[in-house]
């Protein structure tokens, strides 16, 4: 499935994300001298953004339900294997190879 948005709208979305991202990056670098520190309260929450957002992207992709049946077993198992490898290696390439390798074995050979 591809996006239903026409190209100009996608360009606008990309531009908006680009502007916001640059604003985040340049914020303290540009303002140093006037605003030196992130308030402690904001820091308390910021610390958890990566873990919460990334898990929110990972879990639903591994635990998918198609129609009436249970979870899609190939993705759940391949995701589990990849998680074990990611934990041991902390390596993007190794995680990709483990996940895609087991997905293909499960999808084309086993299941």
């Amino acid at each position, binding site marked *: 499935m591809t996006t239903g948005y026409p190209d100009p709208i*996608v360009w606008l979305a990309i531009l908006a994300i680009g502007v916001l991202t640059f604003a985040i*990056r340049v914020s303290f670098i540009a303002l140093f001298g006037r605003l030196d520190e992130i308030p402690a309260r904001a820091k308390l929450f910021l610390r958890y953004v990566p873990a919460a957002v990334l898990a929110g992207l990972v879990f639903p992709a591994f635990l998918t339900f198609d129609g009436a049946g249970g979870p899609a077993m190939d993705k759940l198992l391949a995701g589990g294997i990849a998680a074990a490898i990611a934990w041991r290696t902390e390596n993007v390439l190794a995680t990709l190879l483990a996940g895609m390798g087991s997905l*293909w074995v499960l999808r084309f050979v086993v299941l």
Partner: protein
Amino acid sequence: MHTADLRRGVRDVAPLLLGIAPFGLVVGVAAANAGLDLELAIGMSVLVFAGAAQLAALELLRTDAPLVVVISTAAIINLRMLMYSASIAPHFRDLGARLKGGLAYVLTDQAYALSIARFENGPDVDRVSYYVGVAMPIWLVWQVMTVAGALLGAGVPDSWGLDFTVPLVFLALLVPAVEDSATMAAAFVGGSVAVIGAGLPLNLGLPVGATIGVLAGATFETVKQ
């Protein structure tokens, strides 16, 4: 520019490029899968230049999520760079505004981590030269690999499930983000709520899950103290 310090930056970043290259490839494939043409894929990598945010935005665009959700999710993922900006700012304080802008544009997880370690613990270096030495190769590899992925992704059949590479990359980023029990709580709660909320309209499962996950992590830490 001090060429020796520039070269030192290039040397330090070289091993990390091995992790960045497949990530860029996956983003290119995801762009093709979402139906973006080559120009849009390149435009995104140049204008946004932030892998996790690009991947999330592509996934949400592919499923026709509302633009507000697409844009705000990508921005939330990049909020962590506020911390990098604040932490590296004192090292760049004497530079001109235009140079600051240029350096900020190429601020990434990897460029931040290597530079801050060198600035605060290592021997004295010319900061701009070293930082540029680290950041430029990342930028170049990112652009080249996105193009390669976009060209490749258009030719691979759907049954190969290349879209599964997207959560796998997020997984590889998630593991180092879980550094203690409080971040573990944030991940577990955020992920679980996102699964339960997967059926919510407007792709709200992710932002709702992420928000509750952040609150869970902060609460966990407050209670523990």
